[in-house]
């Protein structure tokens, strides 16, 4: 397949991996955080770990949008369905994420809740138009990648004066999460494979201050396996020469300034939230977006007077440490026994992009 096979070529991979093994200095460890779930997925799916030197470790970061959404926000969405009888439109991989009390959107749907899986934010608009006598809420989640489509539907719904449509906004921002992880004393990260799709929106220069402040090299990396390998080599070279810069491996998609149209859309419709809870990272200031006042009539949190719901995480679950890159999934005593993809306790086990799910599905035992 054009534009994919080129980035999955085994021979090129072996050559790149050999270079990495050659250039990795003995007598030290390299701890590289791949920020996105897409990277984690590629590392496991293509068996990239097998090709790396023993002293190079990938640490799995928080960049799985489904994983970092706290259970309370899902529980609040279920309340919308069950107490306000709304039609809730959601991206599919949120369906099985555990909310509190062993609940999930999937189970709420089975109880009769009208929850629809959609593939695009505009599908939610279509559902609202087709059901004028029902309230339709779009459960908007994700990093900067999925934020512009939400911004776009806000604009469209506003222009159409749709009265039965609103957005439950849960969009989060990448740079604050990255800064939070690097700021934590327990985290030891030598370099970061930076977000790929997110960066296509916000641009590679969005990470400059983070890179400078924490003296940590960042390489914007594509999601294909050769992208991951090439970016790993770029990080290795920065580390070996003592540099800490933002470099861009994913130049076929990411520019330094990003997608300015998308940024303008987001600025028009959304504003910074003072505080937002991330599963695993806790409450982070200036790390998420909410709907701007001009569009307040489309804000589900206001329309339905939604309250924050506190849900205690499973005590044994170490998702927080996994998301900060402090622990590996298999260090968790729940891993693979109490917590499995069939019955996930922590969010990292839910999405195929979650670190625990990737560990479980692809890497439980080495060949």
């Amino acid at each position, binding site marked *: 397949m054009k534009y994919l096979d080129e980035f999955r070529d085994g021979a090129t991979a072996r050559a790149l991996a050999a270079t990495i093994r050659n250039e990795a200095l003995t007598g030290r460890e390299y701890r590289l955080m791949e920020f996105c779930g897409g990277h984690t997925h590629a590392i496991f799916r293509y068996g990239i770990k097998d090709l790396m030197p023993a002293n190079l470790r990938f640490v799995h970061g928080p960049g799985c949008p489904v994983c970092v959404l706290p259970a309370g926000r899902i529980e609040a969405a279920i309340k919308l369905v069950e107490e306000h009888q709304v039609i809730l439109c959601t991206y599919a991989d949120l369906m099985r994420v555990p909310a509190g009390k062993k609940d999930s959107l999937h189970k709420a749907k089975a109880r009769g809740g009208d929850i629809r899986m959609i593939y695009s934010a505009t599908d939610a608009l279509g559902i609202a138009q087709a059901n004028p006598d029902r309230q339709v809420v779009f459960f908007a989640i994700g990093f900067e990648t*999925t934020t512009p489509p939400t911004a776009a539907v806000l604009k469209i719904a506003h222009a159409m004066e749709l009265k039965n449509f609103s957005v439950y906004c849960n969009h989060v921002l990448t740079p604050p999460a990255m800064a939070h992880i690097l700021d934590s004393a327990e985290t030891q990260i030598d370099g970061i494979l930076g977000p790929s799709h997110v960066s296509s929106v916000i641009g590679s220069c969005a990470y400059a201050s983070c890179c400078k402040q924490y003296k940590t090299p960042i390489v914007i990396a594509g999601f294909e396996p050769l992208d991951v390998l090439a970016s790993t080599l770029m990080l290795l070279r920065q580390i070996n020469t003592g540099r800490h810069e933002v470099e861009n491996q994913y130049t076929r998609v990411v520019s330094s300034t990003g997608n300015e149209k998308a940024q303008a859309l987001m600025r028009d419709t959304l504003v910074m939230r003072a505080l937002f809870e991330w599963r695993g990272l806790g409450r982070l200031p200036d790390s998420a977006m909410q709907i701007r006042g001009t569009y307040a009539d489309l804000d589900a949190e206001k329309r339905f007077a939604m309250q924050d719901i506190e849900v205690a995480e499973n005590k044994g679950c170490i998702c927080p440490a996994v998301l900060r890159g402090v622990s590996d999934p298999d260090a968790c005593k729940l891993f693979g026994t109490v917590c499995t993809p069939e019955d996930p306790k922590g969010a990292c086990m839910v999405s195929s992009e979650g670190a625990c799910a990737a560990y479980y599905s*692809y890497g439980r035992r080495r060949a």
Partner: protein
Amino acid sequence: MKATHIKGVVDMTHGSGGRASARLIEEIFVRHFDNELLAQRNDQAAFNVPAGRMVISTDAHVISPLFFPGGDIGSLSVHGTINDVCMSGAVPLYLSAAFILEEGLSLADLERIVASMGEASRKAGVPIVTGDTKVVEKGKADGVFITTTGIGMVPQGVNISGDLARAGHAILISGSIGDHGMAVLSSREGLGFSTSLQSDSAALHDLLAAMLEVSPNIHCLRDPTRGGLATTLNELAMQSGVGMLIEEQAIPVKPEVRGACELLGLDPLYVANEGKLVCICDAADAAPLLAAMQAHPLGRDAAMIGRVVEDDQHLVQMQTAFGGSRIVDWLAGEQLPRIC
């Protein structure tokens, strides 16, 4: 068989057992299934069977949409059960069919489905000899649900079962994977993409007969339907108490299937097939079996994709095209598209 151009929709009287039921059965079912045993109008079909080992299998069919590129629920319900029967090595003989119709289903659609079943069964040479129809109120079903049951006889000398895979055996697949699942998905509303993909829905007993002629010594057969190739291999590994090692590069996947899977974040290894089989045989039998498969229209793209290995954890592992290896796990829940 020409369609009768019946107008109107299914209503509750069609399930009442009265005149409307009788008319429906005559004008649609008997007409399109048309065989001697059904024509006797008994509540059961009676026939002689040869001595030997008999196989029975049943399969409930629900699918949305009812019509998809390359097939419909009717042909699917015939192929599905024939395949389940013949994955034991059996020659399928007869089918039964039970219909649950939702009030409001258009009679024209019902006739299209039944005609397609009739055609599939005639083409396969496996008649539908008895059946039943019930009607449920609107909202209590999804158009039509079809359950088919099939029986068949296993020829002498054939011993096929999911627990007979042993280390050293070869793993064959009869063609490209994921065609059915992606064809159905692409025809669903709301996805906003279209492909030229056709479902691979087909009855595999003829292909199997050609294979058994070359080597009756096949150990395991299974059609990788729901859950795809990955699930079938995991089932067989578990049942036989072995591991499997497959090679990504050897697995045939059509470019359209790969493309659609990429777009939706799905893995073709887990996407359903309705006209493919997995065969596990002695390594020495692999080449002649492959040649026989490739000479048959339903096995043109057959390939050897790996081998059975010893493994007390019964894992399916894959050598990636990339040069690494990974576990090909059971599917957890349903395969859901990813958001980024």
